[in-house]
């Protein structure tokens, strides 16, 4: 597989095209453009119900230039299993990149379906674009909403302020299935994202790629939608979002975070503006711990 390290090296071909109704500055839409470039012409996409489905497929229009199917919210992995089985039966499985696209919501409601497909060993790339809330229904909390974040179902009340739970460790849950390839990515590092998706197609089994995608409305920076990429980069630079891979059980850190203070990431987002100094310090400690833990896993698996 050829690794592409420059933005200008990415293919010029577009398979997710303009005309969709995503917000200007939408993080997930950028992810769609990049991931379809990586998957290329010979790909079949299964898309879960959510922002990227609603914004891209208003009958009779479509933004998709590859075969694309949306069925429901929680069953994308199972639909992919059906496609995988049919292509295998027809003898054409290896001619096609099979991609599932879902938001973090589908990782909640569809966890059993994902687990089933991973355990069956079906060959497909599951891409979870994580905007850390149920954005399509209006910014409600999901299992992947981070600690303290405002959402419309975890409002900043007089007694309870924001989300009381930490983000579900979905990558650990997926990793427990011992699938060939797991990676995290984010749109601020487009080449890293592109290369990881390309790489996922080389494995003869399921892959899972978890992509952090800032959401201008849910993360409350709608006054300046131009900072989507900046926020994505800051997530990595602060160590809040670690870019790593688990390839056949081996951990690999892809981008070493410079460990900017987490507040630099938080202060751009209205969803965190209520955080106390103490809460920010606690999160700073948690970020350090999870980074140390990843370094440990990386050296242990070498």
């Amino acid at each position, binding site marked *: 597989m050829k690794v592409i390290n420059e933005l200008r090296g990415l293919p010029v071909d577009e398979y997710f095209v303009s005309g969709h109704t995503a917000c200007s500055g939408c993080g997930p839409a950028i992810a769609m453009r990049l991931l379809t470039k990586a998957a290329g012409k010979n790909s079949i996409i299964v898309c879960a119900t959510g922002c990227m489905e609603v914004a891209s497929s*208003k009958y009779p229009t479509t933004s998709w230039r590859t075969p694309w199917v949306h069925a429901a919210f929680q069953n994308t992995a199972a639909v992919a299993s*059906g*496609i995988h089985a*049919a292509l295998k039966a027809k003898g054409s499985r290896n001619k096609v990149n099979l991609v599932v696209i879902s938001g973090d919501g589908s990782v909640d409601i569809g966890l*059993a*379906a994902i687990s089933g497909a991973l355990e069956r060993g079906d060959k497909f790339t599951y891409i979870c674009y994580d905007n850390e809330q149920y954005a399509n229904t209006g910014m409600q909390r999901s299992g992947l909403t981070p600690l303290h974040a405002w959402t419309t179902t975890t409002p900043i009340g007089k007694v309870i302020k924001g989300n009381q739970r930490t983000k579900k460790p979905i990558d650990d849950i997926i990793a427990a299935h011992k699938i060939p390839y797991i990676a995290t990515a984010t749109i601020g590092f487009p080449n890293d994202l592109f290369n990881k998706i390309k790489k996922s197609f080389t494995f003869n089994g399921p892959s899972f790629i978890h992509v952090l995608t800032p959401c201008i409305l849910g993360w409350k920076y709608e006054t300046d939608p131009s900072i989507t990429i900046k926020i994505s980069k800051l997530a990595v630079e602060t160590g809040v979002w670690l870019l790593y891979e688990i390839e056949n059980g081996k951990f690999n850190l892809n981008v070493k975070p410079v460990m900017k203070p987490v507040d630099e990431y938080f202060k751009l987002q209205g969803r965190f503006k209520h955080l106390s100094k103490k809460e920010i310090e606690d999160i700073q400690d948690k970020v350090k711990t999870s980074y140390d833990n990843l370094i440990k896993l990386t050296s242990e698996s070498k």
Partner: protein
Amino acid sequence: MNKEFNRIAEASAAVAEAVKLVSPKVISIYPITPQTHIVEKLAGLVNNGELKAEVILAESEHSMVSALIGASLAGVRCFSSTASQGLAYANEVLHLISGMRLPCVMAIGTRALSAPINIWGDHSDVMNSRDTSWIQLHCRNVQSAFDTIIQAYKIAEKVSLPVMVILDGFTLTHTFEPIKLLTKSQVKGFLGKFKPKHNLNVNKPMTFGPVAFPEDFMEIKHQQAKLMDKASYVIKDVNNAFKNKFNRRYGNGLIEVFNPDYNKVIIASGTTAETARNLKCTVIHLRSFRPFPFKELKQVCEGREVVVIDRSYSYGSGGPMALEVRNVIPEARSAIMGLGGRDVSLSDLEKVINSNKKDMWVDNL
């Protein structure tokens, strides 16, 4: 054994045998009583090399039927089977399959719905899915189960709607009878090659399952309603074609009329109709519940004394089949029988025919 029969088979095995002859490329399975024998037989056929198919061992019925969407859109024939809670759990996906016009076929071994939990047969599960826009065909004996599976693929592919082939849990799924089989080449000749109308093709990319706003949604659903109307004719045609090829048919495809000369008429689906044939009355086997054969029932029943046997109940309303029949025979009487596997005996059926009550439950005659 009479030489015109060539095997004694359990209905579940007959379904598996029919599926083997159809030879779908993908079989998606998840077990639930009383459907288990069907999927176990199929797994055995595949593992013994008698049936070349990819088996998806799903983790739930929801995923099991979701996989049918993928397989069907990828351009192959597929098969699945479930019952009861499994059918209810899969319910939302049933709407997707019909809405996307996918010609999937599924066998249902009917069973009561919880609570209280009960593993035995009645029609609560299939009635609960009557508005999913799946064609629903009932079988009354082992031969009809075998034949209906084969007809179902032809019907589904001609109409572009999915078909449920319905077997009464235990009273049919676990019953052995002598049957006449067909050969693989006979079935192949009858069905022809599967030619999907549209599929997931990288050389001709299409978008499936888009969002339809209010300005389009109704037109799309209206087309779907017309397809179900068309299904009435297709079921009849396929039944006739089957008769011409194999010399077996099921009435006109929608209903079967037995002992036609009596004034008293029992209308029932599945094994209840088969049992009722032993009584001194006319019996109509309501083979097709969806589409519902209003015109045909009216023709046969007008001016006669009709009682409809339902094996399920619409709470706060009545027996679902009786309610539909009353559209054309308003004076039709209704009897609720055989819930949760309660035996539908000849003596109870006799009591029902001779009763003068308009609405009755067999536990309370």
